């Protein structure tokens, strides 16, 4: 020791109590690990929901009745599904009154066979009337995909210019989309004319449950005239078209259901995190209190040599910070590594939309988890640090007191 410094003394105090130091660092490590993992996970789910909110810009979705769940599964999770309105039903629905925007979409699930390069949901949309996908797809390919062209979701293998085969036809990848956390990530978008051709090829190759003839659609998206009461409107729709087997999905209701599921889940995660934080703080505070008790004599000696109370308190806080830092850092490092390694697994097994936030948000989460873990040690030591002056004086008068 060349100089008397808080740091050098604190380091020496830490290294000569390896077991206690290890325990303290270990607790902070667990805390940091769980906090960082939990926040990352929550942020990805929240981001998934807001991505859907931004992209489901329709008031109502009409789907064949009985396929409401399939439609949600296709939209949210990209579960390949095929369901259809007959062409004459489509004609009828497209003529609905009181709508400001209305557009058909056609879903075709590709096969797991040599006729298709990937198992995806093919989505046909009509760039003329579309108001859902165009604002977003047009960023990639202005005017939408042309003949034998396809725009692919982020998780589909294939880059711009590559050839992909669907139902024995070759398509050129005209654009690739950014990640959305929704079913769109595993979808391939074509224009409605191509989709009708593809549906014919689908039927030829043995695809089932599809109507013959041109003009089928899986889903019709509607924006009602401004000021329309959506509840009443969809209720009337259901009644008026009941014999045509039309089901109405109110997207806001669907999103609200989704959000409330998510809120429940995130609520549980937050409660667990807070509980863990309290538990960790309590255990740390107890360890510091025990350690203060055990070190009364040592602190008393420092007092006798002329170290101020506040310097001793600072010494204890420095020790706690020095112990927290590696624990918090290790927790941060391990949780990030594990998280990004396990992410594909998590996003697949989750039944909720899931999307990684941007880099700044991730950095913020990592920094936040690290900081909270880092200050937990000194915070837990605060009470004991404040008592040092009082406890140490008695200990210097009598040995072993």
């Amino acid at each position, binding site marked *: 020791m060349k100089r008397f410094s808080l740091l050098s003394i604190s380091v020496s*105090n830490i290294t000569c109590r390896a077991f206690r130091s290890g325990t303290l660092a270990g607790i902070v490590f667990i805390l940091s690990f769980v906090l960082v993992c939990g926040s990352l996970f929550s942020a990805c789910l929240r981001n998934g929901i807001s991505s859907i909110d931004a992209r489901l810009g329709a008031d109502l979705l009409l789907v064949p009745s009985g396929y409401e769940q399939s439609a949600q599964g296709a939209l949210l999770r990209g579960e390949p599904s095929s369901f259809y309105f007959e062409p004459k039903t489509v004609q009828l629905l497209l003529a609905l009154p009181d709508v400001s925007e209305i557009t058909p979409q056609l879903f075709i699930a590709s096969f797991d066979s040599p006729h298709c390069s990937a198992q995806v949901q093919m989505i046909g949309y009509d760039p003329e009337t579309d108001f859902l996908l165009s604002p977003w797809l047009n960023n990639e390919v202005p005017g939408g995909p042309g003949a034998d062209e396809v725009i692919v979701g982020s998780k589909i293998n294939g880059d711009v210019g590559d050839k992909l085969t669907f139902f024995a036809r070759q398509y050129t990848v005209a654009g690739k989309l950014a990640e959305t956390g929704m079913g769109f990530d595993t979808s391939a978008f074509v224009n409605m004319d191509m989709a009708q051709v593809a549906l014919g090829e689908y039927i030829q190759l043995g695809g089932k449950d599809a109507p013959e003839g041109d003009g089928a659609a899986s889903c019709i998206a509607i924006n009602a005239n401004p000021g329309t009461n959506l509840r009443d409107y969809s209720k009337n729709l259901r009644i008026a078209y009941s014999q045509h087997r039309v089901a109405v999905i109110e997207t806001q209701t669907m999103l609200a259901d989704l959000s409330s599921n998510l809120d429940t889940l995130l609520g549980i995660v937050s409660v667990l995190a807070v509980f863990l934080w309290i538990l960790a703080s309590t255990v740390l505070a107890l360890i510091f209190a025990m350690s203060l008790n055990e070190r009364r004599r040592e602190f008393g000696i420092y007092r*006798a040599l002329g170290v101020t109370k506040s310097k001793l308190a600072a010494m204890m806080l420095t020790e706690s910070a020095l112990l927290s830092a590696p624990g918090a850092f290790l927790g941060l490092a391990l949780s990030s590594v594990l998280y990004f390694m396990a992410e594909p697994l998590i996003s697949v097994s989750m039944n909720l939309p899931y999307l990684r936030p941007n880099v700044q948000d991730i950095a913020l989460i990592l920094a936040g988890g690290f900081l909270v873990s880092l200050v937990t040690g000194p915070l837990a030591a605060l009470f004991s640090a404040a008592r040092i002056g009082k406890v140490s004086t008695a200990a210097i008068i009598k040995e072993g007191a």
Partner: protein
Amino acid sequence: MLLEVNQATKLYKRGTEEFKAVDNASLSLNPGEYAVINGQSGSGKSTLLAIIAGLLNLDSGQASFDGTDIGTLGDKKLSALRNEKIGFIPQGQCLLSNFTIIDNVALPGLLAKRKNSRERAKALLDRLGIARLANQYPARLSGGEIRRAAIARGLINEPKLVVADEPTSDLDPANSLNIFELFNEIALSGAAVLVVTHESQKPNGCHKRYLMNDGVLLLES
């Protein structure tokens, strides 16, 4: 007068009952003066020393060092006083176990930001005959060696007052004699020395002896 304690009283609580651990005690020391305090266990000797070192507040009376009433000083000034002017050698094993002997001895010097503290520590250890133990940890030392190291630490900042609490309690007669001889030398070099001891004989060179009994301090004539 270097140290002046005037009618000092310190109350302690035992359960709900208060008692006077130090009862109206008065004591004074000039520079170069060497005094001892005798007294039974529990009579309040250590409490009195803690008061002198500014570690305890008085309930009544006053203690002054170099003309300053130490009761008026804040923790920072008191700590500095203790560090620079008072060599306090607490009762029992009072070395820091995670530092070597030389670091223990040099510590108050480093704390006071005095130059050459390690060199002076080395010289003190040499003078006390334990230079060869400089780089050992306290756990490896005998009781007498620990005591001498603690005394060396008390002298590192060349204090005006040296206060020692039973510095020979666990030592054999030869070693005890040695240590009292050392205190005599320190006093001769100009510092005031106050030693609490159970030795009934007045040590060589000692100027005055106090007796403490149930908190009451008497100067032996």
